[in-house]
């Protein structure tokens, strides 16, 4: 029933309860204070005044009684008159006091006694006047009798009424005082205690309810917040109250649901991102090892989140990047191939050029040396040309002697040819003999075989002859061994004959070649004779030419000097060229290496 009351109202209820309790306590205290005040007023303004008035009245009456009794002692009239006046004054005062006393008479007892007091007073005044009258008459005896009789009776009666009234007022005052004392000493503390106890119970109950109605949902909320903080987003608070905590619980549940939805969405997004990132990483891994044929599978689903869009754009950009990289690598590969080819050609050309330059340098060096040698040679030639000219003349004579010797040589060669032909014929005869020896050896071989068989049969016969045939058996075995040796010897002879036949054939061919060689030699000697004759003529011309050469070689020497200078310049230029070529070769080699490296670097990409 309190769940639908909001917290402000609950606090207001607590405050109002406090205020009501305070008001009740104040009213109660005020009422009790008024009662005490009334009691005090009743005592002070009623009973105490009445007692004082009654006491004053009794004193005045006692004084009047004394004054009246003074009449019995008056001796003169003047004194009586004075006493009469005094009595009259006193009577007036007493009457005034009695009249005033009537104002404080409240209850019936007081009114009754007051009436009796006034009656007794009137009767006392009357009896006193009578006494006075008797005294004036000098009737003292009657006066005394009356005084002691009626007057005294009326006076005592009046005093008695006054005493009763005083006593009544004292009793009333005591009663009121006692009531007040009861009120202050017992009723008020008990009442206050009860009221405070009731108020305490009420306040504690309300406060307990209030605290419980606040702490319980707070505890639920605390548990819920702790669960959510611990990651349990499915926790919900079951609080359907209409107060602030109900609203807070609903808000908490909504927050939990929102958080759960958010986390589920985030988890989905994270899984999607992880999936895509894994795909991209695999793709990037393949690209990193050079596989440029790989493309990212772009996600075309309807996930239109910003992350999906970004990842899609990233994948598209990666594809574009790899596409560009692939094109670039293709172009680099083409260019590299071109560069590689060109650099190889350049390298080959420079290598060749270098080799040529080196060769050229060597050649030039050799040429310089040669030129120097030629110069020396020319100098020597110049010196020897003269000697040649002289020698040529001697050569003419020698050539003539040579011509004669050639004719003799031709004759000798003819004789050699005839001898060689004779040797060839002899060797052919020898070859035929060798063949005959082979036939004889075959016959000997056959004889050896038959001897072996005969020896065997002789052995058999010897064995059959028994003890007597033993010696023959040994001979037969010896014969058999000899036959075996004969076979071996004939085999060796056959081998030697084969070698002889081969040598003979070779000798026949050599003699044939010798015969041909002798013929050729004869022809050559004849040609040599012709040559010698021509040589003699040439030598004569050479002698003349040598003389001319001697003259021209002097000119050649100066020409060779110029040539040497020119070739030295060429050598310097060649050396520079060789250096440049080597530099170019190194550059071409570097370029070729670079092209190879680039080709290798590009070749790792699969396009």
């Amino acid at each position, binding site marked *: 029933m309190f769940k639908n009351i909001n917290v402000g109202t609950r606090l207001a209820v607590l405050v109002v309860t406090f205020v009501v309790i305070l008001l009740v306590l104040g009213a109660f205290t005020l009422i009790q204070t008024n009662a005490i005040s009334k009691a005090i007023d009743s005592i002070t303004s009623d009973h105490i005044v009445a007692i004082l008035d009654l006491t004053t009245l009794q004193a005045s009456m006692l004084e009047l009684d004394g004054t009246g009794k003074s009449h019995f002692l008056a001796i003169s009239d003047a004194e009586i008159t004075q006493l009469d006046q005094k009595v009259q004054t006193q009577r007036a005062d007493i009457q005034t006091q009695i009249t005033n006393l009537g104002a404080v008479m409240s209850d019936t007892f007081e009114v009754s006694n007051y009436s009796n007091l006034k009656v007794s007073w009137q009767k006392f005044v009357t009896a006193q006047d009578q006494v006075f009258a008797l005294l004036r008459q000098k009737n003292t005896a009657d006066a005394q009798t009356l005084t002691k009789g009626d007057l005294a009776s009326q006076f005592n009666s009046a005093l008695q009424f006054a005493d009763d009234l005083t006593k009544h007022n004292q009793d009333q005052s005591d009663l009121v005082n006692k009531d007040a004392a009861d009120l202050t000493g017992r009723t008020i503390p008990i009442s206050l205690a009860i009221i405070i106890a009731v108020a305490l119970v009420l306040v504690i109950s309300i406060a307990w309810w209030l605290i419980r109605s606040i702490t319980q949902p707070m505890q639920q909320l605390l548990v819920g917040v702790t669960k959510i903080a611990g990651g349990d987003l499915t926790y919900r608070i079951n609080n359907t109250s209409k107060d602030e905590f109900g609203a807070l619980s609903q808000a908490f549940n909504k927050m939990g649901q929102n958080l759960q939805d958010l986390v589920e969405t985030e988890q989905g997004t994270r899984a999607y991102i992880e999936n895509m990132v894994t795909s991209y990483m695999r793709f990037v891994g393949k690209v990193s090892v050079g596989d440029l044929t790989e493309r990212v599978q772009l996600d075309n689903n309807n996930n239109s989140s910003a992350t999906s869009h970004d990842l899609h754009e990233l994948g598209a950009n990666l594809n574009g990047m790899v596409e560009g990289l692939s094109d670039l690598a293709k172009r680099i590969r083409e260019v590299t191939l071109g560069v590689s080819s060109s650099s190889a050609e350049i390298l080959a050309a420079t290598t060749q050029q270098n080799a040529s330059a080196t060769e050229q340098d060597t050649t030039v060096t050799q040429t310089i040396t040669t030129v120097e040698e030629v110069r020396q040679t020319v100098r020597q030639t110049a010196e020897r040309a003269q000697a040649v000219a002289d020698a040529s003349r001697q050569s003419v004579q020698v050539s003539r002697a040579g011509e004669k010797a050639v004719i003799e040589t031709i004759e000798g060669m003819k004789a050699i040819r005839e001898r060689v032909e004779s040797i060839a014929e002899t060797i052919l005869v020898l070859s035929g003999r060798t063949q005959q020896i082979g036939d004889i050896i075959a016959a000997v071989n056959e004889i050896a075989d038959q001897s072996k068989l005969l020896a*065997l049969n002789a*052995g*058999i016969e010897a064995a059959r002859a028994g003890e007597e045939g033993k010696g023959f058996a040994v*001979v037969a*075995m010896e014969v058999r061994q000899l036959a075996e040796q004969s076979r071996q010897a004939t085999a060796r002879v056959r081998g030697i004959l084969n070698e002889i036949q081969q040598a003979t054939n070779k000798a026949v061919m050599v003699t044939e070649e010798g015969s041909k060689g002798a013929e050729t030699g004869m022809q050559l000697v004849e040609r040599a004779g012709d040559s010698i004759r021509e040589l003699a003529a040439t030598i004569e011309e050479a002698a003349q030419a040598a003389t001319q050469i001697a003259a021209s070689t002097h000119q050649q020497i100066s020409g060779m000097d110029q040539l040497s200078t020119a070739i030295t310049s060429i050598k310097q230029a060649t050396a520079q060229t060789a250096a440049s070529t080597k530099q170019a070769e190194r550059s071409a080699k570097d370029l070729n290496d670079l092209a190879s490296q680039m080709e290798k670097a590009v070749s790792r990409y699969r396009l």
Partner: protein
Amino acid sequence: MRVFDHFSAEELAILRSRAARIAVPLHIAEPEESVTILLVKINAEQYGLPMDGISAVYEDVQITPVPNVPEAALGIANIRGRIVFVLDLGSVLGLPTRRQENENLPVIVLTSALELAFQVNSVEGIETIPKAALTNNFPHLALTRKAFLEGISSDGKAVLNLNAILDNLVANNHSITA
């Protein structure tokens, strides 16, 4: 021309001394019983035929086949005017034969009254073996008919028992000798 004419006097002296040395009996003091055998080869194995049963050895013998005879009978041959029946000794002994076409193999004529000759793969020579050296322990020999064997020498030559072989031939096949 005599046989020894091509030797010089020195060579002849050497031959004579060698012949004298070989001709000396080895065991004069203790003549022991021995058997002289003709060593022949059948396939790769060496067999010895007792010399007292052999008449002669011939080569280049023309053998004429005879129909309707057992496989071991190669045919008949005319040897020095004698018509003899030529048997393949390997087949007679029950050994597998390995014969090539037109192979000129030696033929051993026996002294038997049956006019028989054995053809073998080759004739190795004559050898005398002490009978005491013959054993009957021949675990590695291909010949399984132990009755045909006289014994085995210490160097593995199987000495055949010609009488047992001839008795077996007569007992098993009269057509050969008929």
